[in-house]
C-alpha cells in the first residue's frame, strides 16, 4: 500500500487518486429530549450542524485513510458553502475542483429525530447539485482522466453520468446507490458501473427480488450482473454484508454482535470508502470486504456521520480482530 501514502496534489507526477463525483451539502440534525409533536412549537431541542453530502463523506473517509481524494461537486455561495469548503479541506479532501454556484443555497439535509433515535421526518433540498451539468465534468476532464477510480452517486444529473460513461470508459467506476428513491435515475445506466454497493432496500428496488434468505442474494446478484455490473456489495445492516462477482467469488461477512452502535448514519458511506481503499491498494475481494466492514464498524461507533478519528491504523487493527467466512 505504500504507493497510496503521502500528500502530493500536483497534476504533474501526481500520486494516484480517487475522483469522488457527486453531492456535497450540510446536514442539520434536530435532536430532542422530549417527543416532537407535529403542529406544535417544540422549543426544547438541539440543532447539530455538520458537513455532509454522501460523496463528500466518502471523500472525507478516504482522505482520513490517507488516500488522495479529489471531490468533483459544488456548493452554494452561502455560509454553508464556506463552512463545507473550509472543514472539508481541513479534513484533507482536495476541494480545488469544487464549484461555487452563484445565487444558490448549498444542498441541505435536515433530519428530525425523536428521543428514541427514530427519524420523525427527513428532508432535503438538492437544487444546488442539480446545477452540475456535463459542462462541469468537461472542464475537469484533464484531471478526471488521470483518476485511478471514479466513485459515482446516482443523485448526479443524468447528463453527467452519461457524459462520464462516454468520455471515461476505461476508468473503473464504483457506484453507491445511497437511496432506494434514486434507483430509477441509474437503472438504465448500470452497464457503466464496475463495482456496485447497495443496501438491502436498494437491491430490492433495483432487482425487484425480495431479499428474504441467502438464495435471494444470489438471484439479486445474477440480475445485477445481467445489467453489466462486475462486482456487487450488498450491506445487510446488523446481519453484515454480502459480496459476489462475475468471476464466481462469493463472500459473506457477519456483523460483530458485540459492537456498541451509537449512530448508523454514514456507515454506508464509510463502507464504500473502504471498497475504494481496497481497490486503490490492490486488495483481493476478501481483504476489501474485511476492510470495508471495519470502516463501517468504526463509523457506527461515532455520533457523527464521518468518524473524525478513523485512521488507516485503526481500520487495520479492526480488520485483524475479525474473520470473514466464505458461504
Amino acid at each position, binding site marked *: 500500500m505504500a504507493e497510496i501514502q503521502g500528500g502530493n496534489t500536483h497534476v504533474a507526477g501526481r500520486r494516484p487518486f480517487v475522483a469522488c463525483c457527486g453531492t456535497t451539502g450540510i446536514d442539520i440534525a434536530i435532536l430532542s429530549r422530549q417527543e416532537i409533536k407535529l403542529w406544535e412549537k417544540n*422549543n426544547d431541542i438541539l440543532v447539530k*450542524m455538520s458537513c455532509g453530502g454522501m460523496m463528500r463523506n466518502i471523500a472525507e473517509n478516504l482522505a482520513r485513510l490517507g488516500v488522495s481524494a479529489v471531490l468533483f461537486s459544488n456548493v452554494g455561495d452561502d455560509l454553508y458553502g464556506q463552512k463545507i469548503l473550509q472543514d472539508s479541506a481541513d479534513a484533507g479532501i482536495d476541494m480545488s475542483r469544487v464549484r461555487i454556484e452563484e445565487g444558490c443555497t448549498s444542498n441541505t439535509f435536515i433530519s*428530525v429525530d425523536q428521543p428514541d433515535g427514530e427519524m420523525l*421526518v427527513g*428532508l*432535503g433540498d*438538492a437544487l444546488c447539485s442539480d446545477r452540475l451539468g456535463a459542462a462541469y465534468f468537461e472542464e475537469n476532464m484533464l484531471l478526471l482522466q488521470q483518476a485511478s477510480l471514479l466513485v459515482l452517486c446516482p443523485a448526479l444529473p443524468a447528463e453527467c453520468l452519461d457524459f462520464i460513461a462516454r468520455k471515461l470508459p476505461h476508468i473503473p467506476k464504483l457506484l453507491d446507490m445511497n437511496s432506494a428513491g434514486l434507483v430509477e435515475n441509474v437503472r438504465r445506466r448500470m452497464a457503466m458501473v464496475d463495482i456496485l454497493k447497495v443496501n438491502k432496500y436498494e437491491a430490492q428496488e433495483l432487482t425487484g427480488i425480495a431479499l428474504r434468505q441467502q438464495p435471494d442474494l444470489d438471484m439479486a446478484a445474477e440480475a445485477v450482473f445481467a445489467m453489466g455490473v462486475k462486482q456487487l456489495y450488498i450491506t445487510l445492516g446488523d446481519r453484515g454484508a454480502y459480496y459476489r462477482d462475475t468471476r464466481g467469488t462469493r463472500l459473506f461477512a457477519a456483523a460483530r454482535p458485540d459492537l456498541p452502535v451509537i449512530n448508523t448514519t454514514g456507515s454506508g458511506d464509510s463502507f464504500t470508502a473502504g471498497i475504494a481503499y481496497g481497490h486503490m491498494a490492490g486488495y483481493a475481494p476478501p481483504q476489501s470486504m474485511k476492510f470495508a466492514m471495519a470502516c463501517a464498524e468504526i463509523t457506527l461507533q461515532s455520533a457523527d456521520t464521518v468518524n473524525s478519528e478513523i485512521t488507516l491504523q485503526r481500520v487495520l487493527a479492526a480488520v485483524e480482530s475479525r474473520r470473514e467466512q466464505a458461504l
Partner: protein
Amino acid sequence: MSGGYTVCIGDSSVDIIGLTDQPVRLGDKNPTFRLSAHTGGAARNMAENLCRLGGRAKLLTCVGDDLYAQQILRDSTAAGIDCTAVRQVPDHPSSSCILLNGPSGDTCVAVGDLRICQYLTGDYLAQHRALLAEAEAVMMCMSLQPDALDYLFDEFPQVPKVVDVSATEHAALARRYLARIDTLKVNEFEAAALVGQDDPKHCPEQMLEALLQMGPTRVFLTMGPDGAMAGDQSGGRVRRPALPLKPVNTTGAGDCFTAATQYCRTQGYDLAQTVDFCQAAAAITMTCEACIAPDLTDQKVLRWVQRYQKGGTHSG
C-alpha cells in the same frame, strides 16, 4: 429623529423554512423540499423594521460563535442595526428555528433551539447601563431571563417600555410588569392568556378594557383578519377592520406592527394615526414572502395609509 435611538432587547435567530408541493412521508427522506434560511428573532426583526422605517435601533441579544452568528450579525448590521453591544457566547450555538410545511398544510413540524436566551441576563444588561439609560425607549419581547426583566423595569423607570408579548407562553411573565409598560402589543391569543379568558374570540373591546385596567399606558390588540384595536389611559379608543388584502406570509407582521408603534411615537402621531400606520406597515409585510419586507420605508407606509383611507375601507 433627532439622534435618539431605541434599544431592542430579546432573541435573534436564523429561521429555516422548508416548503414542498409533494406529500410528506413521515419516517422517511423527502428530497423535494425547498429550504431557505432567514435571519429572524422577534427582537431583531423589530429592530430591523424600525431601521427600515427610518428609526435608529441598537440591539441587545445573544448569539453563539457559529455560522448562524455570522449570518445574524452580517444581515443585521447591513440593515442598519447597531450590533456593537450584542453578546457573543463562546462555544455555544446561536438560536435557530426550523419550520417545515407540507402542501396545503398536511404536515407541520416546528422546532426551535433557544438555549442561548439563558444568557440574556441582568448582568449582561448591566454592562450596557448607559446605553439603556439614554434610550428613547426600550422595545422588547419576553424571552429575557427574569432577572433581566427585573433589572430593566426597576433600574430604568423613566425609559418607556414597548413590549411585544410575542408568545402565549410568555403571558404569565408579562402580567407581572403590565403596570410599568408604556406600550403593550398583543394578538388576540396573547390578550386572552393575559386576562385569563379561555376564548381568544371573546369580545375584543372587553379584553382591551381589561388589559388597560392592568396598567399599560397604551394597548394595541391585533386580531388577524378581524383587524386591530388600540386604547390608552386618557380614554382614546380606536378600532379598524383589516385591510382588504390577501396575506402571503403572516410571519413577522406582528414584529413589524410593534416596531411601527415605536416609529409613530417618535413622530408624535396620535392613537388613530398610529393604528393606521401600523396596520399599513404590517400589511406590507404580510403581502411579501419574506418575514421582513425588503422595501419597507416610512414613505411607502404613508402611501398605503392614504390609498386605503381613500378606498373608504375603514370605519374612521
